[in-house]
């Protein structure tokens, strides 16, 4: 595979314009760019932050593996993902996925596919910090996220 996914796990926020530029600048074969960004929600002001824990090494490896499947399956020209860890407040970015391709559907599918697998297959966990100042619970895995994987069964 000649196209390498660009995958980063980091504490800092990301710059979507800059990340798009890395995948498009100096080339004229990209016709479609889809970005997904996932933000921390405040859950009606009950949440003060989410704390994201990850398994270093395995997190990168799993996302790269899934991203490579996406490149192959949808004929992507490029794919990037940035997943943040640490304490993230409502309104802040958690995750970014970008897929590029000649035509639009491949980019939509590539980004959607990577997000669905990231939700349930990348070793990240979220703990809630409550607006009351208390530590909340660890976020439970959702059946809906497992179900979302079915749409990619061939």
């Amino acid at each position, binding site marked *: 595979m000649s196209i390498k996914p660009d995958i980063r796990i980091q504490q800092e926020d990301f710059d979507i314009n800059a990340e798009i530029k890395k995948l498009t600048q100096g080339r004229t074969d990209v016709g479609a760019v889809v970005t997904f960004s*996932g933000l921390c929600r405040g859950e009606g002001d009950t949440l003060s932050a989410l704390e994201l*824990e*990850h*398994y270093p*090494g*395995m997190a990168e*490896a*799993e996302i790269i593996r899934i991203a490579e499947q996406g490149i192959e399956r949808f004929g992507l020209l490029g794919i990037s993902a940035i*997943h943040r860890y640490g304490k993230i407040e409502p309104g802040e970015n*958690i*995750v970014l996925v970008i897929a590029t391709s000649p035509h639009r559907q491949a980019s939509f599918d590539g980004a959607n596919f990577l*997000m669905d697998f*990231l*939700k*349930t*297959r*990348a*070793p*990240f*966990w*979220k*703990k809630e910090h409550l607006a009351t100042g208390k530590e909340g619970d*660890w*976020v*439970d*895995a*959702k059946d809906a996220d497992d179900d979302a994987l079915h749409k990619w069964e061939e």
Partner: protein
Amino acid sequence: MTVKLVYFAWLRERFGMGEEQIDLPVTVKTISDLFDWFETRGEEFEAVMEHRKIIQVAIDQEHVQDQATLIGDAKEIAIFPPMTGG
């Protein structure tokens, strides 16, 4: 056999540690055996093992679906709740 055990999220909190180096008993050949042995390690381990059906495992950073999987000469075994990325 010495293996590094790594814990995440509420397992880490309940066990009170993120990792440990352990000499596994010779009887521990599979992930399921490992969980049986965990149940003998005291109250906190026993309590966590009540959720053993949903607990996830990675052997040397490779996700393992079947708890009957052999541990073999693994260097690192990670144990964690279902993942909630994204």
